């Protein structure tokens, strides 16, 4: 049993912030992209005859969009960038497992996404004057923690998939928008066709987000919230199990094919 490596967590998070997050591209991703999505959402809402923007699906939805995009792109660039600059070989060649590194990096990426969400909340309060009275505060908080866990479970799955092959990065680009649309970042899931709702049911983010949105809208329906939280946690665990199964295979596969390096 190895001891808990606080030093590594601290060091890896600090490197991740300095190398990835504090980078004009990623700062733009966390700020500009959600702002654009929120603006489009608000314009559509106004076109539909609403006088004020929808708190959950326009303002906060933009923040969630920023969190998700940030996670997808940072996870992609973590592996592709490390493969391109030769770091992947050095990390894999060290006694620390790549899985642990990926877990910490993904956690950093998910937590960085809170910056986006924080900005969305600030915009809601300062620009649109929402007071958040009547909100189920604990419901929002618990849902947010579970949402972060759900995003992390998908992030580590993606990171391992990306490590598999030099070409895998191409496929990840297909995931960003479909997941956002499937999980109802900018509109309620119920507007989707039923068959798409079934598909979205397999993504843990959808359940955590629905619980958070309902709590923001003032719902205290504990049954509804607990079911959603459990679904999110259960499905996240499925992704974690899938990731564990994939990790050993990926580790051997990249060492067999020589795909640790981009050259």
């Amino acid at each position, binding site marked *: 049993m190895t001891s808990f*490596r606080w*030093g*590594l967590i601290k*060091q*890896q998070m600090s*490197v991740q912030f*300095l*190398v990835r997050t504090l*980078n004009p591209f990623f700062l733009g991703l966390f700020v500009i992209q959600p702002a654009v999505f929120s603006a489009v959402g608000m314009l559509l809402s106004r076109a539909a005859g609403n006088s004020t923007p929808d708190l959950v699906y326009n303002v906060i939805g933009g923040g969630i969009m920023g969190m998700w995009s940030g996670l997808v792109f940072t996870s992609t660039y973590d592996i592709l960038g490390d493969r*391109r*600059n*030769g*770091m992947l*070989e*050095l*990390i*894999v*060649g*060290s*006694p*620390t497992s790549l899985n642990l*590194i990926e877990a910490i990096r993904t956690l950093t990426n998910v937590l960085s996404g809170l910056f986006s969400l924080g900005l969305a909340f600030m915009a809601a309060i300062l620009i649109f004057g929402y007071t958040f009275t009547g909100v189920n505060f604990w419901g929002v908080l618990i849902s947010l923690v579970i949402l972060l866990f759900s995003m992390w479970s998908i992030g580590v799955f993606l990171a391992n998939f990306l490590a598999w092959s030099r070409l895998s990065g191409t496929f990840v680009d297909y995931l960003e928008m479909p997941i956002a649309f499937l999980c109802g970042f900018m509109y309620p899931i119920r507007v989707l066709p039923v068959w798409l709702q079934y598909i979205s049911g397999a993504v843990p983010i959808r359940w955590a987000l629905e619980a958070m949105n309902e709590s923001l809208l003032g719902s205290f329906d504990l049954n509804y919230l607990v079911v959603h939280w459990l679904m999110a946690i259960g499905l996240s665990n499925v992704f974690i199990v899938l990731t564990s199964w994939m990790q050993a295979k990926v580790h*051997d596969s990249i*060492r*067999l*094919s*020589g795909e*640790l390096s981009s050259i």
Partner: protein
Amino acid sequence: MDSFAIETKSLNKVFKTKTGFWKNKSKSTVAVENISFSVERGELFGLLGPNGAGKTTTVKMLTTLLLPTSGSASILGLDVVRQTAEVRKHIGFAFSSSRGLYNRLTAFQNLKYFAELYSLKNDYANKRIPMLLDLVGLADRADDRVETYSSGMIQRLHLARALLHDPEVLFLDEPTVGIDPVGSRELRKTIKNLLSLGKTILLTTHYMAEAEELCHRIAIVKKGNIVALDTPEALKRRISGESVIEASVQSSQVQMLLEKLKVMDRRTVVEHTTAAEPEKLSIRTPEPGKVLELLSPFLNPQYILNLEARSQTLEDVYIAIIQGDQE
């Protein structure tokens, strides 16, 4: 305790690539074929060979970055396939590349990160990193971002990184590539110091003088196979019966002189270098007297500007072996 620091037995690596979208075609490329050698503890062992000979693939298998297709390899008695995690604790490696560091971080920050990957205690790392940066001559640039470094400085930082956890076995893949002569000399001095500390080093290089100066034994690799393995002196003795005569020749006279040399038997090999004026003929022969007799009448500025006989160097041996007229 295993007596060898590094041991390989019939090591093979075949890369399989697939091409085509509808009809998959599989192509196999043999990178390393049946390589067997052993390196004693405290020995500096050189792997020489042309590009694509399989040197780096061999090093990557030994450093657990590649899985062998067949055969076995061990480091300090630990199997590189079955005891990967243990092997990684005992080895350090540096590849010839300006890649492999975070450019936006300083040298100190990069080393601090790797210190954590190698589970070094914070206090120990904080003492060791400045010491290593001093050893590789980067102490005064420790707090500068790596993106401001020259390729030689990056190479030296890689060596410091490889030494962070004080490994017993060190793999250096072309460590002096891109480093100026003064820097190369410093690095060779550092490598000798490491050797005096009892480290085992496997070095790959293209620089024969470097191999001759540093290596206790050398394996010459050609098309994935070891074609010669011995001490530098013993390798040179293999063709010690031969001498090398080098002639600086006016371009207009090269063909005429090549015709004259055709009377020599097939043991005499002539290499013609056209890169510069005057052109150069390098004649490797077991009969230097006969060659000198043939060429001496032309030793005047209209034909041959300079004629020089010298003994064999490791480079001559290497070229002879790689060109296939030995072994």
